[in-house]
């Protein structure tokens, strides 16, 4: 795609690269790619200003399939590379693409620091609860009991919740979506793109080879309505096929419960209204798990603050150093002259 394109409204395929896609047929990554391409087109991203940075994993192959700039780095370190990219040129529009292993196993530390520093990037975590590329070992998000080649008798580790981790790390934008729920995913990606600072998006992704159906308990279309609550700022947290269920704060307690609207004396006023600026609420939403509770999707938390790259830029003068400046620096302090 060339710069000339910018004149007409771009279409998703303008952002697709010419490389053959090498994910397994049916992998959830295809759906995410589709949504990202559409997002780029919808926001009319400038290809030359857009950079996709990734680590290693199936998910991390992502940059090859996008016709913008792309950097497929090393396992776990994409956040660090992205930080350098933004420090060199804060005007670039940077997306980081990562898997659950890449982001939360080897790369957990860099993600923590990217989030707390609030680097202005979109961070997409494709959570398939498995190491896909290395052929199916359990990952830090795999539930206890997962049987894999490295846990033949079932994993005994308690998984980390990507969203709870991001909130604990101080992230200022935390959202969730599902690979196949295109419309919602697209909406979330656009909000993430619009947010200045680090936008963290966990995308539930299906690995049909090594962990097929792991998200079915809430992501499968047949249960979606009952097992998903789509959080929207200022809107009541209602769900169900007939939108007759809702979340409520158990009175006087710091716990959520699901209630049926209009039953057991539950009225509109009892229904919790989503406040995306409340971190505690985001934490409670993130902690809900099927089958007892629906899974919360959408922007769980958003409370913008100055981004790191912009703060750094504000402290630093522009452009390369100049020799004249250096002369000054070197002459500051005590000097003396030896005469010839």
């Amino acid at each position: 795609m060339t710069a000339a394109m910018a004149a007409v409204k771009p279409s998703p395929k303008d952002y697709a690269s010419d490389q053959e896609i090498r994910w397994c047929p049916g992998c959830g990554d295809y759906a995410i790619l589709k949504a990202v391409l559409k997002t780029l087109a919808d926001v009319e991203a400038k290809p030359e200003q857009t950079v996709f940075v990734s680590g290693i994993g199936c998910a991390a192959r992502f940059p090859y399939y996008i016709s913008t700039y792309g950097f497929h780095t090393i396992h776990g370190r994409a956040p660090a590379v992205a930080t350098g990219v933004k420090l060199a040129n804060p005007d670039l529009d940077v997306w980081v693409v990562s898997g659950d292993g890449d982001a939360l196993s080897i790369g957990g530390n860099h993600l923590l620091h990217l989030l707390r520093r609030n680097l202005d990037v979109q961070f997409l975590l494709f959570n398939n609860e498995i190491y896909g590329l290395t052929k199916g070992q359990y990952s830090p998000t795999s539930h206890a009991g997962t049987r894999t080649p490295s846990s033949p008798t079932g994993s005994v580790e308690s998984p980390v919740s990507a969203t709870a981790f991001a909130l604990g790390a101080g992230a200022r934008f935390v959202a969730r979506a599902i690979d196949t729920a295109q419309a919602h995913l697209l909406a979330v990606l656009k909000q993430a793109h619009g947010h200045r600072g680090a936008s963290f998006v966990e995308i539930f992704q299906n690995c049909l080879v090594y962990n097929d159906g792991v998200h079915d308990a809430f992501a499968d279309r047949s249960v979606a309505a009952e097992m998903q609550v789509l959080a929207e700022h200022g809107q009541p947290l209602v769900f169900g096929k007939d939108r007759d269920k809702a979340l409520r704060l158990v009175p006087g307690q710091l716990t959520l419960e699901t209630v049926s609207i209009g039953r057991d004396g539950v009225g509109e006023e009892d229904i919790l209204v989503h406040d995306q600026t409340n971190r505690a609420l985001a934490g409670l939403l993130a902690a809900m798990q099927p089958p007892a509770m629906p899974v919360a999707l959408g922007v769980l938390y958003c409370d913008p603050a100055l981004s790191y790259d912009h703060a750094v830029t504000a402290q630093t003068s522009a452009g390369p150093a100049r020799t004249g400046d250096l002369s000054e620096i070197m002459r500051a302090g005590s000097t003396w002259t030896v005469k010839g």
Partner: protein
Amino acid sequence: MEGSAALDGGREKRRVLESAVVRFAGDSGDGMQLTGGRFTLETALAGNDLATFPDFPAEIRAPVGTTYGVSAFQINFGARKIMTAGDRVDVLVAMNPAALKVNLLDVTPTGLLIVDTGAFTDRNLRKAGYESNPLTDGTLGDRRVIEADMSQRTLEALKESGLSKKDSLRCKNMWALGLVYWMFDRDRNSTTEWLGGKFAARPDLAQGAVAALNAGHAFGETAELSGELNAYSVPAAHLAPGLYRNVTGNQAMSWGLIAGTALAEIRMVFCSYPITPASGLLHLLAAQKDRGIVTFQAEDEIAAACSAIGASYAGALGVTSSSGPGVALKSEALGLAIATELPLVLINTQRAGPSTGLPTKTEQSDLFQAVFGRNADSELVVIAARSPSDCFACAIEAVRLAIKYMTPVIVLSDGYIANASEPWVLPEIESYPKFPVKFREDPEGFHPFVRDPETLARAWAVPGTPGLEHRIGGLERDADSGNISYDPANHQRMTDLRAEKIAGVAKDIPEQAFEDTPCEGGVLVVGWGSTFGPINRAVSKLRGAGLPVSHIHLRHIWPLPSNLGGLLRRYDRILVPEMNRGQLATLLRGEYLVPAESLSKVNGKPFLIAELEAAIRARLES
């Protein structure tokens, strides 16, 4: 004094010396670094050549009076070219028993001790581990001692100053400095002025300090030191004319990096994680944000290396720095920079290891790591600085090569060079030839691995450039398109190309020269890095004595200069002194099949000139 002949003549009753080594030692809180720094400056102003070395304790602030809390500053100055901070100490200023204990053995047998007797209390003696008073029990041997109750004398001198006792005692170091000024006939004016500036907010303290300085000086002048000739004069050296300043290796390195990027007209993004003794570089550059330098204190060394790579990818020059253990953590990232062929500069301020080792002690044992320390065939450029001021040129060269060859460059410094200082003629940086970076902009025929046929460097296309959108990564890529390739023949070709590119750097660096006209036959001493000073001095002295010794000192460790093999093959005896167990020696043997012999020293301290002289003599005689 030792290592220096007394010159004839001289004004007054002063004994004229060719050079002298003075060490100031005291508690961390005694201000010895500051004292040494001031003495250095006055000495430079007096026209001597000099070299200094500070020796900080490993502890942040050890309990007062302990041996491990002793802080020292050493200066070697002379009427001739000074190459090292000095093998042995001629004059030791010891502010307490611990300082004496730690430093006494380094003082020449006939050296001079200046001791604050006020600090030689029972309690302090015990803390220093002395069972009886070394000033009286014969411990000092034939060394001469000037005893002075400096605390008491300072208090007396400041009686009228209105300063509290605590504040008055803070001026004790100035008393000692005054005495040493008298001893070496130094002017006090600029120090007096400087004190006024430093304590502008506390004029009483400034006056007190000056009073102490003068009192110490007066103590020397008065009869109290009669009996022995303790006044010296070290004539000015013949130095090249120019504007001088004192620089440490860290300073020169930071300026060299700024100079290099300024000459390349590229922004520097400096990414580091603190570690002794490398942190100084981060601090110095962080102070230059208003000069266009971006500094980033990363969460760890891996992030530091990776963010520097990201910065280079985005069109800045990523620079990262650390010391041995931190550099180990960067190994995998270096592989990425090699594979993606991005420029990167990595400064390794080496320290003694393995593992945490001796963080505050020096060693040059990361040569293997720099040249070989990564998975796979993964060559890069390695450069080593030989002295504090040489860091400037090395940093510029590193920037130039990294950009020109699209490769990581490792610069090896060490804990000694980083903190030692020497006078330096300020370079006229504005007249240096520029080497502006050329980013690729033309989409015609572009792919990310098109190469310059001359340098074999790939094109550097930077995000933000329309029409050059591309993807790179750590997977092997096709030499003809830059796309991922699993093709066997292509991997062979790319591996060869990467190696040839680095080998080609040898054509772009100066041929190796001798440090002096070479002798035919005899011993060739080959060194690298901070062994330069002692080797050079040792060789000069032996040559002065008419012995056939030559000296080659390498800046370029990898690739090696193209003529080096030929030079080495002219000698049957090649001695390679290193502060490691023989790493360069092994490298040279493997490359050139020459019988390079290692002279190894690994005790955290630089070579002594005497040590080297003896070792070379032994080779000459055998």
